């Protein structure tokens, strides 16, 4: 590289490097330093004098043994199917609903009301899953549940909701969307806000209908955000929201076929032993699959539309 070029290069990149510096330092310390710990996924971790590092070094190698419990049981298929299945449905319904909500909230003529609605939609997000589970129970309990009372008053039979697996995929999808929509809508509301107003003005002048404006201006502008969020959530497709699947169905045994996911399975499996090796192995497995899936999705997106990919 020539000297003048180099100078130019430094002047160009230096400020940007400075900007990245705090974040990069943070990542190194808080994320990369602890990563040596993944080694224990391949070890039979025991305690030895001299602290964690020494324990880690002295513990025996066991290869992939810590991973076996995830695949060896008959439930392996069910928990993986449930985890991936629910996450896919959550991604699809969540995205469609939050984009639709954002557009509708934005189009409402009564802006004050729109703001009140947005704020109210946020409340479920603040309630912990444990508390949400109380309310779901208030609806679904066998004796005093609101829905069963309604069924009775309509002259129909009561249903024992917590023992009927067939209802639960629906219930879980509903509850999850109810809790998270307020949050995820905000991404798109903000994205809509940054659409240049002049586009709509000229569209109006050309006589475009509302629907055409949404289709040709709003949605294309939301596309990068939709793609980014989707790719990122695909990376977590092997990790389930523990609170949702553990607390909301109240750990009802008969529902396990449709509510047991990787995270609840591992939690129950390690409840007594708390084996660090096995929990680290689970985390590593989820990360590797997530990583591969993100790379794959990104690759596909890149093929179709180069600008939308996140790498």
């Amino acid at each position, binding site marked *: 590289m020539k000297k003048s070029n180099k100078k130019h290069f430094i002047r160009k*990149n230096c400020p940007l490097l400075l*900007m990245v510096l705090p974040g990069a330092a943070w990542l190194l310390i*808080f994320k990369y330093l602890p990563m040596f710990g993944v080694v224990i996924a391949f070890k039979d971790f025991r305690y030895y004098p001299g602290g964690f590092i020494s324990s880690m070094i002295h513990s025996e190698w066991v290869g992939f043994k810590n991973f076996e419990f995830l695949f060896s049981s008959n439930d392996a298929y069910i928990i993986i199917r449930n985890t991936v299945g629910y996450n896919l449905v959550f991604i699809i319904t969540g995205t469609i609903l939050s984009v639709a909500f954002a557009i*509708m909230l*934005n189009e409402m003529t009564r802006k004050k009301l729109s703001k009140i609605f*947005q704020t109210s939609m*946020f409340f*479920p997000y603040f309630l912990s899953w444990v508390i949400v589970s109380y309310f779901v129970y208030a609806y679904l309990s066998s004796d005093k549940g609101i829905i069963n009372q309604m069924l009775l008053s309509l002259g129909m039979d009561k249903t024992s909701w917590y023992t009927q697996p067939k209802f639960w995929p629906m219930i879980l999808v509903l509850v999850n969307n109810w809790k998270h929509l307020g949050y995820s809508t905000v991404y798109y509301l903000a994205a809509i806000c*940054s659409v240049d107003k002049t586009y709509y003005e000229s569209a109006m002048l050309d006589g475009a209908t509302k629907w055409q404006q949404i289709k040709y201006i709003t949605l294309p502008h939301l596309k990068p955000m939709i793609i980014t969020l989707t790719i990122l959530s695909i990376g977590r497709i092997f990790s389930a929201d523990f609170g949702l699947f553990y607390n909301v169905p109240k750990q009802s045994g008969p529902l396990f076929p449709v509510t047991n996911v990787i995270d609840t399975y591992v939690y129950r499996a390690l409840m007594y032993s708390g084996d660090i090796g096995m929990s680290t192995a689970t985390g590593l497995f989820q990360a590797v699959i997530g990583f591969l899936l993100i790379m794959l999705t990104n690759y596909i997106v890149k093929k179709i539309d180069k600008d939308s990919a996140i790498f």
Partner: protein
Amino acid sequence: MIKKTKRSFHSINKGPDIIITIFFAIFALSCILPFLTVIMSSLTDETTLIKNGYSLFPKHMSLKAYTYIFDQGQQIIKSFGVSVFITIIGTAISVMMTAFYAYALSRPKFRYKKFFNYMAFFTMLFGGGLVPTYLVVTHVVGLKDSIWALILPMALNVFFIIVMRTFFKSSVPDSIIEAAQIDGAGEFMTFFKIVLPISLPSVATISLFTTLGYWNDWFNALLYIDSAHITPLQYLLMQIDRNMQFLIQNASDMGMGAGEASNQLPAETVKMAIVVISTIPIACAYPFFQKYFIQGLTVGAVKE
């Protein structure tokens, strides 16, 4: 600089408008009702609550849960202070770091873009696990039982970096940045004078989410905090939840111990009161950030 646009050229037909309004009214109600029930439960007399369960219109009201919490005194006030402190300081640090990082990644000419992009992205999925992270935070950074242990370990969220980068890329046209830099503006200047103002809605979004993240965090407190005077509000609440879960799971193996443990649990109404106290302040934060979701912020407006 920011100019509200007239409603006229952006309104929809009356029919759909009413339908949408009614739909959202119902949905918003379904979101707010459980919370109202929580408020009413916290105002219910304890025995009434046990006998009749939650209700929007309890038979016997009582302020006992709140008087109990405030008689208990210091703890809830201290925790409130801790929560406010970590939320404000944490959000400030975090949004700053996130925005810088995201901006650098959004610049096409940044030579190490790819490296830092991967560097961040990789950590979104891979982690070292609980114990190694604990070890680094307590021994290497030295944050054991310190209020900074509630701030620094979550000072950066790679998810938000990527989202913010997308915002920057899609809402700030390269041409403007280039034009500014040809005029002699440096990267910092461009960032503060052009990119941030245009991206105000996105910065507000990320700030809001970071605020919520800090306010709702309890896991760092569980890991790193041993002293009561630096426990955040949310952790107080989670402790009650977790204690109950623990008791349900282990009651049969605990024998008589279960009784002694449940004696240490606060009443259900107190729990509901803590939910109320910990939610109301943060719920007020939303309208604050909402102010910045203003449509009509045009690129032209910024340039003027």
